[in-house]
């Protein structure tokens, strides 16, 4: 079986039912996506498939169609995505365990709606649980990143 993650093609030999999350984490050693619940309740495992946020704990790798992007592919400490930059400016993370998923979900939101309202942020981000309670700063950081992205886009 073949899959493309962050632009790199990988060859794997696993059962097709194995969720994408565990292929990424345990087979490919891509540890940004996190295991939080395994049942689509927390969003810690969120990655993009062809640009759309999905819960990788729920996607059997055999059903995968499209290219996978994880937090590692979105931006790096040296080349931050606007959302990661806003997250740092707003000092969003506490334990940080949910934040890969939060940022990937937010990136997908901004793809769909470049300037989301609070209500739209609530709607799209509420599947991502944060036990540390970083929600107020997540809201602020998404608005800030939306501004940056619209300024830098032609």
């Amino acid at each position, binding site marked *: 079986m073949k899959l493309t993650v962050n632009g790199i093609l990988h060859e794997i030999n696993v059962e097709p039912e194995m969720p994408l999350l565990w292929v990424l984490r345990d087979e490919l050693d891509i540890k*940004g996506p996190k*295991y939080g619940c*395994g049942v689509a309740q927390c969003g810690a495992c969120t990655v993009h498939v062809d640009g759309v946020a999905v819960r990788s704990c729920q996607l059997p790798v055999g059903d995968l169609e499209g290219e996978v992007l994880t937090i590692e592919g979105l931006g790096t400490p040296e080349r931050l995505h606007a959302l990661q930059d806003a997250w*740092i400016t707003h000092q969003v*993370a506490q*334990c940080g365990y949910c*934040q890969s998923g939060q940022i990937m979900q937010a990136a997908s939101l901004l793809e769909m709606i470049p300037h989301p309202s609070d209500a739209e942020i609530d709607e799209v981000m509420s599947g991502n649980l944060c036990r*540390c309670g*970083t929600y107020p700063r997540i809201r602020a950081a998404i608005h800030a990143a939306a501004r940056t992205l619209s300024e830098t886009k032609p």
Partner: protein
Amino acid sequence: MTRVGKLTRRTFLVGSTAVAGGVAFGVYLAKKPIPNPLLEGLAEGEAALTPFVKIDADGITLITPRADMGQGAYSIQAYLIAEELDIDPATARLSPGLPGPAYHNATILAEGVPYPAYDDSFVAESLRSLSAVPAKLFSVQVTGGSSTIPDGFDRLRTAGAIARETLKEAAARRTGIARSNLKTADGFVLLPAGGRIAYTDLAAEAAQIAPVADVSPRPSSEWKYLGTAALPRLDMARKCTGTEVYGIDLEFDDMLHATVRANPAIGAGLARLDTARAENMRGLHRIIPMSQGVGVIADNTWRAFQAADALDISWKAPAYPATSDGLFHELEAALNAPDFFDHRQRDDGNVDRALSDGTVITADYRVPYLAHAPMEPMNAVVRVQADAVEIWTGTQIPVFVRDRAARIAGVKAANVKVHVLPMGGSFGHRLEMTHVEQAVELAMAVPGRHLKLTWSREEDMTHDYPRPASVARARGAVADGKVIGFDLSVSQSAMAPEWLERLSGRNLPGPDATITTGAWDQPFAIPNYRVTGYRAPAMVPVSSWRSVGASGNGFYHDCFLDELIHAAGADPLAERMRLCMHDPSRKVLEAVGEMSGWNGELHTGGRGRGVGFCMSFGVPCAQVVDVVQTEDGIRIEKVYVAVDVGEVLDPTNLEAQVFGGVIWGLGHAMNCELTYDDHMPDQSNFYDFTGMRLYQAPEIIVRALSNGSAIRGIGEPAVPPAAPALANAIFAATGQRIRELPLHKHIDFV
């Protein structure tokens, strides 16, 4: 702070033997100089100036022994050292160090003394410092009780100052220039005529001289980092790019992956096991029956989970009741029953007389068991070799982990290495170590190989040591528009003694303060005022949960006070302020009134407003919650918070911790409980134990005051006032007085 407190903390740093006079218990052991763990295993050219700073030719390592579970402990510890050492902490390596007695927590047991935190009298202060002695004896290198700041504030800055002055002394000897003529900045000693010498270049010489111990930390007016808004967390970029390495992310070439199924009735063990359906599953390595359940070892985490799901297991039953009804029945039976009396640390005036006439107001309250459910499920990597064990895990109790692993594996404690990893939350869960015990047991079956144990979310939630459930009866009286009598009894299983015994095998004699903390110790001068704790039998094994006793008692105390104030016809904020006899506490009430534009109007067109107050961990915290009653239920709109931590070191992180504490308090008050059936929690994942989600999060406005006498931590104190402020606001909006958590059993939320 009194002289006693200061001496105890300072002398520890230089390993001196002086201890304030009059300590009878365990003085001999406590007086032994504490070995500096960095002195072992130092390579040539390395100097370990204090247990908190290590310098070699490659750079500077700051040792930050208090664990980081998300509260920012690593960063603030580094800033405390760096402030005095004169380095930019972003250029240093941070390491939690290896566990050892030099990193004992001198503050954590202090909250157990029978004097409230607002009592600064000499007796209270000396007793608090006495409790540092057993902490040292126990080697309690514990992170918890919002104690990292109060414990580290002097100690870490002094450590930085000792290191700085010793480096200057080394430079003085090399150059012949007096130490007093040398300055330091950015990791260099500056020479008066220009020119500078790097700390790293002085390390070897500094190692040869006795540390300069005659130092005192700079006054806050000279601070460069502390107290400013520009204190970015040193782990922030990693956490926003998916590059932080948590315990669950560790990878070794030879690593096996394991999971367990253990009896949710902790300690009762396995009755029957059928492995047939799991045996031929792909990637399965071993199935191992264990003392508490079954372990499954495979070549991948998911395969281990799959195999564990395929096991057919039945559990033995413990002696305590099997259902929530039965458990609460036991709690109620112990309430006000003389045989179960535990302590009465508050008994002012004459409560019996004040409550003897016909106008007594009574109310029964209760709070549920609660899971910690940090986002990162428990995990540990362990490798067992012939006479050594190595452990990588996120833990708040590394010394206990080391000693327990040694016992299980039958090796010397000195041969157990514990590496503490950043944690994806804890909230008290990692004050327990069942997952490490299990990982050691399993790793012993595959000696020489790294084994990673990962709990499924379901295992994490059903095999937690939850926040204790409790029940309370409150009675009170009012006269002439004032609260004049307040009598609260609380019944709960003992929490602290059970925990300490689990960890250390030692018995903690005396009462269990957690049964009433957050209630008996409130800074109010009600003329007839009594708080009594009853110790219910040990049932579901329980543990510390963010804000510990105050998480439930803060709800009881403040809600019932609100009921009495309402019965008296007084203003909830004004009457709390009138009753308050502690200046910093009164000022947070005043501040929250001003912030919220409090005008006594509690109910306007479907809106309600409530105030809540609790002093916990020495921090007074007042909150005003505004709710709106919609057609579909209650919406929490805004929360105003005023706190006093004595001195604010990191305003940005303080705000984050208050946001987190409020959301934690409100979320669990709204919709979380563990209920039991057949000795098992009914809840097993986030669909039935959720807390707050983003769409429910209110706007939160925070103000930190600095009128308190001693510096305090903020990881927990914002939790206790949130639930009562919310319940009081709901009462204001709807007239419905809810005396049981979670509130959603009685009212809907949107």
